[in-house]
């Protein structure tokens, strides 16, 4: 499970990994400039996609997908145990990852928070 927060003053999105997820993902947190966040989507079906090649982290099919993966030339960061709570965060080319796929407590609220933070309206 990842805890997503937004620091509007610094313009940073932070994903903080909870408990054992720090071990599975080999990360305690990710910090992404909001300017590099292209969008967020609640997408339970994402978990059925082929994962590609694991570069670092943990993969137990059907149980946990966590850490860095490469697929079709794209660099993905996963931290998902429960697909129903998976949120896909698309990042700009300038970022280290193309896409983050994270399990969050409240997907709808998380997507709203991110989309409102990057909205240009």
């Amino acid at each position, binding site marked *: 499970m990842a805890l997503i927060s937004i620091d509007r003053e610094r313009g940073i999105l932070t994903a903080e990994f909870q408990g054992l997820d720090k071990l599975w993902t080999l990360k305690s947190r990710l910090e992404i400039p909001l300017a590099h966040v*292209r*969008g*967020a*989507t*609640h*997408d*339970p*079906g*994402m978990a059925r*996609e082929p994962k590609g090649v694991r570069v670092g982290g943990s993969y137990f099919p059907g149980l946990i997908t966590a850490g860095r993966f490469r*697929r*079709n*030339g*794209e*660099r993905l960061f996963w931290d998902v145990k429960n697909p129903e709570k998976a949120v*896909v965060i*698309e990042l700009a*080319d300038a970022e280290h990852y*193309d*896409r983050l796929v994270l399990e969050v407590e409240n997907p709808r609220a998380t*997507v*709203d928070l991110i*989309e409102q933070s990057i*909205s*240009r*309206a």
Partner: protein
Amino acid sequence: MGRPRAFDTDQAVSTAAALFATHGFEGTSVDDLVTATGIHRGSLYKVFGSKRSLHLTALRRHLDHEIHPVTAAIATLTDPAQALTTATASYDNGPAAGLLLLAAAERAPHDPEVAALVAEGITALEEALRPSHGDAAPQLASTVLGSRLRLRALPTTTPKEY
């Protein structure tokens, strides 16, 4: 850094618009979009960024390709009865105003970007009815959109096109 996209973006947006117009934003999953467009999930995210962004693109396209051409035609009519009949017929059978109305009800209250696009669509209809109805144009536009909504709410045994 992904592979270059090899699909017709306009066709994908059009297909997505039809799904959103039928099932709404929440009722359309990324699985639905991937299945209907035939585009890989990764490519969908790479091109549009998010489901919300794709919805905004679909709504923009809906205004440019369907709403504005119809309202431009209505604006040329000065006879009140003819203008109202044309507007009602256009919105009932012509452009998929269902997408606009669904976005107005479902997304506009929570999403300022959707609200702005919905306002643009409604204003366009109001302005189109102004040459024929003057100050009563906003009221007539509400009537046209309301009747479209009423039509949508009618029970049916066959799948509807919006």
